[in-house]
């Protein structure tokens, strides 16, 4: 059987991509292998770990549980799109460095996507709300506490005007 294909138009980090993709290509493989945006990680490939989280039309979703064809006409933001326009790190990203919110970094793109989305709707989350927002993201290194610290630090810095996000 020939590999069925479909043409799509997907906006990723503000750039429109028109191409033909195999129907069974997952969105995460499209991002990493077709577009070479390897910031988004892929762990379990069946919806458990959260490493592949991206923002679809404003909401965080798992990109291993979508086929690229489903993203046709939609807009995606990956971890690459979270940095400042000049390429420097966002306050949230910088706060992860400050508090040691990452060790191996495997979970980090998913954690950033999840907590970036949280801060957009809830600029001053409690520790419980942060833990809830990252409950779908596994980290085998940090024990999560430093990730919670990072998000709280970012929230404080933004509230104090010490940051542009």
């Amino acid at each position, binding site marked *: *059987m020939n*590999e*069925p294909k*479909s043409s799509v138009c997907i906006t990723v980090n503000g750039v429109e991509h028109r191409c033909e993709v195999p*129907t*069974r290509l*997952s969105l995460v*493989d499209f991002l990493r292998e077709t577009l070479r945006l390897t910031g988004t990680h892929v762990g*379990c*490939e*069946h*919806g458990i770990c*959260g490493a592949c*989280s991206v923002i*679809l039309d404003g*909401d*965080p*979703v*798992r990109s*291993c*549980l*979508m*086929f690229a*064809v*489903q993203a*046709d006409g939609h807009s995606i933001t990956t971890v690459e799109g979270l940095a400042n326009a000049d390429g420097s790190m966002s306050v949230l990203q910088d706060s992860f460095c400050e508090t040691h919110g990452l060790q191996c970094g495997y979970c980090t793109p998913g954690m950033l996507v*999840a907590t970036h*989305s949280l801060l957009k709707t809830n600029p001053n989350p409690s520790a419980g709300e942060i833990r*809830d*927002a990252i*409950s*779908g993201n596994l980290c085998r290194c940090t024990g999560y506490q430093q990730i919670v610290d990072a998000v709280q630090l970012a929230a404080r810095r933004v509230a104090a005007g010490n940051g542009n996000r």
Partner: protein
Amino acid sequence: MKAAIFEYARAESIAQACSLLAEHGADAKLLAGGQSLVPMMAMRLARPAWLINVNEIAELKSSRRDGAVWVTGAGLRQVDVERDGELARAVPLIRQGLYWVGHIQTKNRGTVGGSLVHADPSAELPLVAQALGASFVLRRNGSERTVAAADFFQAPMVTATEPDECLAEVRWPVWQGERVGSAFDELSIRHGDYAIVAACAQVEVDSAGRCVRAVLGIGGAASVPVSAEAIARSLHGTQLDDTTIEAAVESIGQYLDPGSDVHATAEYRVHLARVLAARVLRRARDHAAGMARGTRA
């Protein structure tokens, strides 16, 4: 962990989805949020030859009150249903159940209809639908039928939905009384995991605090979610005091047929069902009393 080859179509209407299903029959699957179907395809437990995307069908996303029922389109995202304040006042168990479902990333994609048709025996929405006696509107090319929850859930991950049918909407009974209370609780290894056992209850009391109506549902302890009708009926006319509730749920095991696995033995599941059933009944009673005092939850 890559899906097998499939042909893909994006349906723009329920009618179009149904005619694609009629054409491709048992080889086709509807793709809603993909939060259950795509993992199964990745593991090659499912290999549909055709995938019909129903995510862009606007008519699957309506949510409205229709007299004594609330009608939710099958394609509504779980997150949107959970956030709908009006729906939460009309059918509070839906929000109370969704609180336990998955994570923000899975609820942003997962749909009401997908969860109900997937019909995991531990899933929260099927339990709420069974307890409340919701009904399911199934469409196929040129016809439509309505199936009651009691007939819809047939076995683990098996429902009355035929391969050529699309679940269009779900009709949830609205209890219109003044003093209605409800509660949902479960035990799982971590929040967001499927429940080991889940329970939900809804009660209505009169001005003297006497129970006039009650339902009690248990999930995760039988092949389908169960509605403990005789127990709920035995509460009618009582004050729903703690001892009455404890005595009533004693016989919960008659409804259950749990298995044992690495998380819990069958015996422990029955024990949990009893504890959770009593707890949700007490909370529903207190919630109903709070409604009467005007402290709306």
